[in-house]
């Protein structure tokens, strides 16, 4: 049993390290090479985890080798467009000037139903409003509408909307994040004052407190359990 326990921990740490090295992509946003890597790593780790007759090295060495190959490929794809198009593929324009490009759709095995579903998910039901729809290498559909159908912006309306900038948490579930206090140019005395004006004495009573660059505060106290 202890062997299963230790093997699981070791392999889990190796996988986590591998996934972290892959970057912050989520599963739905993975490039084909990244998806293959994730599937292979999971499979390679599972075998020695379940079968104690297989040396741990048989799982760890292929995982390390895979991560190294993935790293080499990722560097090469950054350096060379040709290699990038071979490994990751190219984005395909499936709708151009409101018209479907059937050959591109066939090439990507994208059906009309799938295209319409993707458009509906983005709130578009009328294909004639779409100037471009591009199937990205990650499998996601990017849609660019004709200007008359694009949402109006504050700039177009000549509105001077104040930019709140980045909002950072100062208190997270009762824990004080002193690093963010410094970042926002405030100190603990300022925080105590803010808590006092809201009827609280300690940051431990606060569930979340956030501050933006205009010193606007979002505040939520902890719920008192009955």
């Amino acid at each position: 049993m202890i062997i299963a326990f230790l093997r699981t921990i070791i392999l889990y740490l190796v996988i986590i390290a591998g996934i972290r090295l892959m970057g912050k992509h989520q599963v739905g946003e993975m490039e084909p090479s990244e998806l293959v890597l994730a599937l292979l790593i999971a499979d390679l780790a599972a075998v020695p985890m379940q079968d104690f007759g297989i040396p741990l090295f048989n799982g760890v060495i292929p995982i390390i080798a895979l991560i190294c190959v993935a790293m080499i490929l990722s560097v090469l794809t950054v350096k060379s467009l040709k290699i990038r198009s071979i490994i990751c593929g190219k984005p395909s324009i499936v709708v151009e000037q409101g018209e479907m490009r059937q050959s591109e759709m066939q090439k990507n095995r994208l059906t009309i139903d799938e295209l319409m579903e993707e458009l509906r998910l983005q709130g578009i039901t009328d294909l004639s409003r779409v100037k471009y729809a591009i199937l990205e290498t990650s499998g996601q559909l990017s849609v660019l509408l004709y200007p008359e159908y694009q949402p109006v912006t504050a700039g177009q309306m000549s509105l001077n909307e104040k930019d709140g900038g980045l909002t950072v948490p100062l208190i997270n579930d009762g824990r004080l994040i002193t690093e963010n206090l410094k970042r926002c140019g405030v100190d603990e005395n300022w925080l105590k004052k803010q808590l006092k004006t809201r009827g609280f004495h300690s940051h431990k009573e606060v569930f979340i407190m956030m501050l933006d660059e205009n010193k606007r505060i979002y505040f939520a106290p902890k719920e008192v359990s009955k």
Partner: protein
Amino acid sequence: MKQFWIAIAILAAIFIGSMANTWILHNLTTNLTATLAQAEELARHGDINGAIEKTEKAQKQWKKNTGYLYAVLRHAETDTVEVLFMQTLEYLKDKDSAGEYMATNQSLIAQIKLLHEMEELNIKNVL
């Protein structure tokens, strides 16, 4: 670019390590099979004590490397060798089991050779 070279270096290290492992296994299995073949030759000429001594020497050498072998080989294969060593010695000590000894010793030699062949870099193993 630094990551690229680190990855290349790790891959190279794994490759060199794997080749070193094959080389170590080759040396170990060659020594073991040679000693076991000598033991069989002695037994054929009636020197049972000499054969026992040689087989025990081979077993000692095997046990010395058990940790390493368990780390790099499938445990089922290494367990089989351990069992065959014990059987070979038991048959050797029993004067009426000469035929069984020869057969088991050959199995042991074949099993040890297989350990190296499994790790050998050749098309047969890659495919």
